[in-house]
């Protein structure tokens, strides 16, 4: 099922002053391709959860429309939309067993949609099998681990074969090891069922690793939509560049003069097609190449060898943060005791942004 968000806007009345409004989601336009897995990504308070609530119908948009396929569902109550929602803390009914929890949505169906008891049980078993919890059907939620509860919640959302599956921070209540496992699991379930799935997260790694497309949001406004690698390699603005990637991108105060990029006093790159102006320059950690006569001169603070790669921590007067983190491959050797280290920069790992609007400035490497 294709999901179309058309100029979706949601305003809430402000808490402090009367008449004021807070815009949680602003002019959200997006066409979700059928059968894809979408990650809605952003820091807390960016409006991603509100966007999710709008799609499932728990909130009504102030303006704009929502389509599932060709159906306009904007004004439909949630139960008529055919969505499944998995809550951040699962919202499993504590007094019901796993089987009863999964059966719950089916028992709500009325009239011609009503299934026979045997059919319901069969469907519940199928859903349980899909998330691999068949052997836990008679437990109560309190007798299960977080990861198992998560699976039950997904099974409950899937059992009525929703047109769209929505997941709110699906991994945030799990510990690190389970998180890795569960996100693969979500990917697999989504592939198996082919249901259009949208999930919300503040963890960029999570979103990048399993999504077909990610939507980066900030303060209610969509910053960029694209395939994870595309967004990483080609960020639309400084916020997106900073938000994606571990370790994060290194940001320098720089300026462009006569087709050259200066970071502090160091002339590091020739950039064509950019007017002279002060800029923010972002360099991905993997964009540094240690070179005897490299143009960027940094004071060396430490070298951490991490198996395959080496992480170099250094500092530079023009850098926004105290330390610069760069990842270099093991073939380059760094003298740990040296006072300075010099780098050349890979042009495709360097991004320029306007100082004022923080928008991306395209350039041609020469």
């Amino acid at each position, binding site marked *: 099922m294709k999901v179309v968000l058309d100029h979706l806007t949601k305003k809430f009345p402000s808490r402090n002053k009367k008449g004021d409004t807070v815009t949680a989601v602003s002019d959200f336009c997006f066409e979700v391709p059928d059968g894809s897995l979408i990650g809605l990504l952003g820091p807390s308070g960016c409006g991603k959860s509100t966007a999710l609530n709008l799609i499932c119908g728990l909130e009504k948009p102030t303006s704009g429309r929502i389509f599932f396929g060709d*159906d*306009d*569902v904007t*004004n*439909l*109550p949630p139960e*008529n939309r055919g969505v499944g929602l998995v809550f951040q803390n699962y919202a499993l009914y504590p007094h019901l067993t796993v089987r009863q929890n999964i059966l719950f949505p089916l028992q709500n169906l009325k009239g011609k949609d009503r299934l026979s008891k045997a059919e319901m049980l069969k469907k519940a078993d199928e859903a349980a099998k899909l998330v691999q919890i068949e052997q836990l059907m008679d437990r109560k939620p309190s007798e299960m681990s977080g990861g198992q509860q998560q699976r039950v919640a997904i099974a409950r959302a899937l059992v009525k074969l929703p047109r769209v599956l929505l997941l709110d921070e699906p991994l945030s209540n799990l510990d690190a090891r389970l998180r890795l496992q569960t996100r693969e699991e979500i990917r697999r379930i989504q592939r198996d069922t082919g249901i259009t799935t949208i999930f919300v997260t503040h963890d960029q790694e999570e979103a990048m690793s399993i999504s077909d497309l990610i939507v980066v949001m900030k303060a209610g406004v969509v910053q960029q939509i694209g395939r994870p690698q595309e967004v990483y390699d080609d960020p639309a603005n400084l916020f997106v560049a900073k938000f994606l990637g571990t370790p994060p991108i290194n940001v320098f105060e720089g300026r462009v003069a006569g087709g050259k990029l200066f970071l502090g006093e160091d002339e590091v790159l020739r950039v064509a097609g950019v007017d002279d102006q002060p800029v923010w320059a972002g360099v991905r950690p993997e964009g540094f190449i240690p070179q005897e006569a490299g143009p960027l001169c940094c004071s060396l603070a430490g070298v951490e060898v991490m198996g395959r790669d080496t992480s170099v921590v250094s500092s530079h007067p023009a850098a926004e943060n105290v330390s610069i983190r760069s990842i270099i491959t093991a073939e380059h050797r760094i003298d740990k005791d040296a006072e300075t280290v010099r780098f050349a920069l890979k042009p495709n790992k360097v991004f320029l942004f306007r100082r004022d609007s923080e928008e991306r400035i395209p350039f041609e490497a020469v």
Partner: protein
Amino acid sequence: MDYDVIEQRTRRRETLRKTLTYFFLSIWALIVLFPFYWMILSSLKSYSAYNSEYIPKFYTLAPTLQNYKDAFTAVPLSRYFLNTLIFTLVTTALMLVVILFAAFAFARLDFPGKNVVFALFLALMMIPNELVIITNFVTITDWGLRNTFTGLILPSVTSVFYIYLLKENFEQIPDELYKAAKVDGTSDLKYLFKVMLPICQPTMVTITILKIIECWNAYVWPRLITDDEAYFLVSNGIQEIRENGFGRENIPAMMAAVVVISVPLIVLFLIFRKKVMAGVSRGGTKG
């Protein structure tokens, strides 16, 4: 599937539900408020006007304060009032001191047998008042304390429940504070009053309010222990008024007395609304 119809139906049902809810809540509000309205209304009608209304009127065009004057002059209402005030204040104050020390000992100090004693205290919470009041009546009578404030007050200056409540609250104060105070050479008593009490002030206020409500409405014990009007509390006073007061059945004056008795607690409640309600929901059942 016509979405407009679905939406319209949902909205209509929602409006209907809201209306019914407000209607239902208003009915109960009316049932709650009507007695209050009626007592104020009746207290403002003159004696002759009230008695001439074979069919009671829902309003009065000639309100009078005469009944309030009668209430204070014909029966010793101000006496009852003063008694209740003394009883309430002294009982509450004494109880606060007693439970404060007990809760402090349980929460802060370590001594052998503490857990046993505390368990015994908790067991006492299950004992209904009706069981012990018989002996207490005899005890107070034997001590010759009938018709005295001492007799009225003594049995109600401890409450296991409040000790328990306060102890729980005290225990939430981190140990470090006590250790820090000890390092600074603060005495236990000083620590109790300078540190614990201010921190637990909200609980103390809650307990105080609950106890005041309890005292103000006390009826059974005062009735047993006093038969001299000079020591009647308002509850007994109002009963006395009902059975012997005002010579004739002077209902407007009776209502004036009822208003006067009810007002202090209602005012107290309206001022401390949040605290009272929070306190009651934390475990105070009436009586």
